[in-house]
Every structure is written in C-alpha cells, then in structure tokens.
C-alpha cells in the first residue's frame, strides 16, 4: 500500500514510524505496539525503565522481523522529516524498537541512560536497531560516544548499522572517530559508497592513513578495495599521487577505474596529467557513466 493513501503525512519521525508499522502489522500486533507506546508515554515514569526493556526485547517475538519495505513516497517523507534519514533497509523490529524508545520522551539525560542500559544487555538485532536509530535521538551530540562504540563492534552488522546509510556519524563524529570508521570499513571489506558524507568528511590525515594501508597490503601481496582511493585523491600530492599512478599502471580494471574517478576530484595539475596519460581509460569510465556505486563492477 502506498503512503500516499494516508490522508495526512506524519509530522515527526516517530509518527512516521508509527504510521508505517500500523500499515504493515496485523491488528493484534499493531494493538500490542500502540498499547505499549501509550503506556511508555504515560505519567508513571517510575516503572518506565523495566517496562521499556521488556517491550523492546519482546518486539521480535510479538511483531517479527520482516522488511519494512517502504515505498519511495515514504522514503521521501523520511528525508523531509529528518534530512539524511534513510530507512529503506529497516525491518519491522528495528522500526518498532526505535518507536518504543522514542515514546519515552525527549529528556536527553534519561534517554542516554536508558540507551546505555539497553545496549549493555542487547542482543545482535537490538544493537542494530539502536545504532540505526541514532539520527532520530534527542540532543544529537550526546550520542557520539555511543556511535564510536558501535564502530568498534566486532559484529559486522552492528558496525554497518552506524557506518552505512546513516547520516549520524558524518554529522557528529570528530575526525579521529570518523577516520576510524572509514579505515575499519576498508579493513573489513565493507563498501564505502554506502557511507553517508564520505566525500564531505575526507581529510588529509585519513588520506595519509589509507595510503599507508595500501602499502601494507601491497607488501603482503594482498588486494585493496578500489574504493580506498576515493578518500585519498582530494589530498593526494607527492607520494600519494605516485601511488595513484601505480594503480593506473598495474591495478585491476576496477582499481584503475577507481583511480580515474578519484583523480577527477584532485585539484593538482599532476592529477590532470596522469589522467591524460591514460586518456583511453579515462574516456571509457566517462562513457560508461561509472560511479563510486558501480566501480566495483567495472571490467
């Protein structure tokens, strides 16, 4: 069903979540959720903690974990209500857990305390939900340590809940934490093009670290993600440009195409000269409309 059927569009992310869940849940499940949202928002704050923790755990048993499967109109609404919010890949359990969490109110002291408690005892799917919800929480700067903790997770799905399709990290993380996020994505083979704000947050220390990483991999005769060069080129000069020249000469087709995409963003005259030296490749990449989202498939 299309969200355009809804007479009035939701005015807040939590109301949008409620609306989407109402559309997708069977009546008993929808009632369960609505009842609990109402009781969490009620005046009896003393019992909220215990009730919230129980409800959030029960979500997968009560509501299941099917995809939320939002229509384009709903995704557009999400982006209007909270710029950058992208619930395209959210599931029902994730949406419901965030809905319940947001029902407890916007007092950020209580919110942070409860979120810490929830994360301390969370199962994997709960952690994914809590990290995907980061852009919706009150008082955004207060969740920086939480986001950095998610980046440290050894469970890839948890890391990617912060790193991919989530605007929070680019908006809030300091350079040190941001650079760790990008390095870790490269390190674990997680695609960079799903990281929101990758180009805007590029910085010289990150380019240096990625260059060093490339040399480590070359020394060990291991492969390197072509996407790495995206964050290097804007700051490439001297040895980093020499690295890009090496990729253009000796890289795989995807790496060479990535080097072309990267060098196109470089302000250096030497970058232009490098591209001229590989004009045929440069023109092929342009003619095919290769982008960072498709470069891994370049052959």
């Amino acid at each position, binding site marked *: 069903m299309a969200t355009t059927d809804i007479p009035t569009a939701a005015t807040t992310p939590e109301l949008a979540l409620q609306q989407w869940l109402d559309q997708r849940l069977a009546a008993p499940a929808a009632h369960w959720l609505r009842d609990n949202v109402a009781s969490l928002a009620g005046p009896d704050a003393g019992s909220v903690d*215990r009730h919230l*923790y*129980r409800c959030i*755990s*029960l979500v*997968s*048993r009560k509501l299941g974990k099917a995809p939320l499967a939002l229509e384009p109109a709903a995704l557009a609404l999400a982006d209007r209500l909270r710029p950058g919010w992208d619930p395209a890949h959210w599931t029902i359990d994730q949406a419901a857990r965030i809905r319940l969490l947001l029902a407890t109110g916007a007092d950020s002291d209580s919110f942070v305390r409860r979120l810490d408690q929830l994360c*301390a*005892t*969370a*199962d*994997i*799917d*709960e*952690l994914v939900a809590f990290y995907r919800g980061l852009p919706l929480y009150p008082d955004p700067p207060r969740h920086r340590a939480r986001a950095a903790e998610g980046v440290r997770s*050894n*469970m*890839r*799905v948890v*890391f990617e809940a912060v790193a991919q399709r989530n605007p929070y990290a680019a908006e809030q993380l300091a350079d040190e934490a941001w650079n760790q996020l990008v390095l870790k994505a490269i*390190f*674990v*083979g997680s695609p960079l093009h799903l990281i929101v704000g990758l180009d805007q947050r590029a910085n010289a220390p990150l380019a240096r670290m990625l260059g060093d990483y490339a040399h480590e991999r070359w020394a060990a005769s291991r492969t390197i993600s072509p996407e790495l060069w995206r964050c290097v080129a804007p700051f490439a000069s001297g040895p980093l440009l020499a690295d890009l020249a090496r990729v253009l000469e000796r890289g795989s087709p995807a790496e060479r195409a990535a080097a072309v995409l990267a060098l196109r963003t470089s302000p250096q005259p030497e970058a232009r000269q490098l591209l001229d030296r590989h004009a045929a490749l440069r023109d092929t990449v342009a003619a095919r409309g290769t982008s960072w989202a498709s470069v891994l498939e370049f052959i």
Partner: protein
Amino acid sequence: MRFIDPHIHMSSRTTDDYERMKAAGVIAVIEPAFWLGQPRTNVGSFIDYLSSLVGWERFRAAQFGIHHYCTIGLNSKEANNEALAEAVMDILPRYLSKEGVVAVGEIGYDDGSALEDKYYRAQLQLAREFDMLVMVHTPHRDKKAGTLRSMAVALEMGLRPDRVVIDHNNEETVRDVLDRGFWAGFTLYPQTKMGSERMVEVVRQYGSERIFVNSSADWGVSDPLAVPKTGRLMLERGIARKDVEATCYGNALAVYGQSGQISEAHWLAPAAVDQRQLFEGNSVLRGQEPQVGAVAERNELADTTLPK
C-alpha cells in the same frame, strides 16, 4: 544425520570445536547460563556474561553455520552468595524475552542449601510469570534425592512437567523422571556422568520418548562431539534410526520448540552462512579466507569414532 546439542557451553570452547561439530552434523546448540569455574564477585560480570550469550556467542556460532540458542538463569552454585543472587534476580527479567532464549536455566540444586532452594523457587516463579520452559540441573552429589526434590518443588510451584527438562540423568533417576512426565536429559561425559555405551542401553531399555542426550561440554574435560558420537554408536548397536533421531535431535526440538524460539525452519529455510560478518585482525577467523554459503566439509575433523 542432523544433531542438536541441547546443553553445551560454547563460550568455553574453541573455533576448532565449532568446525568439528558442524562437520559432524550438529546444526543447533543450546547454551545454558552456568558458572564459570570460579565464582563471580559482582552482578556486572553476570550482565556481561548473559549479554554474550544473546549476543557475541550467538554471532560467533553463526559464523560456523551453527544455530545458537540459550537459557538464562542463576546457577545453583552462585545462588549461595545471597547479595549477589539478589542482584542477579533483578537483572534476569531483562534477558528472558530476548530472541533465542528458550528457557530459564540451568537452575536447581548443587549442595541443596537453603539459599539454593530459595533461588530455585524464585526462578521457577519467574518462569511462570514469563510463561517459559525450565532447564533443571541436577546435582552431582546425592543425585537421586536431589533429582526427586527438584521435581517435587517444580510441581509444587505449579510448573507443568512437560515444560521442564530434568538434566544430567543416569540409570538411577530416569524412571522417576519419566514417570512424573518430565523430559529427561542425559549428559555424556568422557569420565563422569554418562558414557555413550551406557546411553545405548538406556535407550534400549526405556525407548526414546522424552529422552535426549547432550554433551554439556564446557571448560573441563568434555567432548563437544558427544551427541553425534553417541548417535553413531546407537546405530551401530542396533537402536532403531527413529529412536536415534529422537534422542539426538527431535526430542530437544520438541521440548524447547515450545518456547517458539527454536524451530527447524531456522536451518531448513536458512539465511546463507555469511562469514564475511567477521572482522580480520580481531575476529574469530584470523587470516582465513571467509567462506560464504555452505561451510566446507572438513572430514578429517568429523571423526566420530569412539575411542576404544
């Protein structure tokens, strides 16, 4: 043949064990919360341990194609530290509704002290409140009396016997357990508890109804392949295949399936094993190539021959 090990402490085991278990046909495990060999001194240790059962260990098992479930509870040994036990009772409700939690357990008696009795009863009450199954650990010492007492108290507290597993049985306890309508778990230990040879005779005598085997493998001398090895021995000794399947797979599924948290669909209609979920450098797969899809057969790891 597929196997379920419905009582095994994987947190204490290595990745070699996971690989061998998968190769030997173990498709799912249930990890009961228990003690760590030395007593914990504060509730934070319990929080981190219980969180690892619903989080990290479940994730780790999945990397090897094994479905991981758990039970949550305060074990009998640590029930003897009253201040700690009170704090643990406060946090247990936070875990009981998590995904993959199939029962309250393993709980019961060790020494049979008053404090053990107090927290056994309190957790039986919790199981009733949360409408959950119970896994009961029976004591090593004074086993028969301890087993009878465990069942009497469970009934007194209003638990239905078909929703309670009495574990670590032997030839002396099994009749009483079955007669009262409980499920009878048998733990196969290389040196103590039951051996595979004795288990074959138990099944020959009592059949396979409500009887099932487990390894209880942990940080001590124990064998994570005990279930497949015993299944194989049963077949060799002429036990009917349906009885082997019931005692090594189907009965565990039947009793814990009542929780709604473990289902054959999890492996018959599975998400592909995706070892890319792992992190190099700080992962359980250090330096190996991730395997995507089916975990490769490692026959040399799957020798389930019993030592002679």
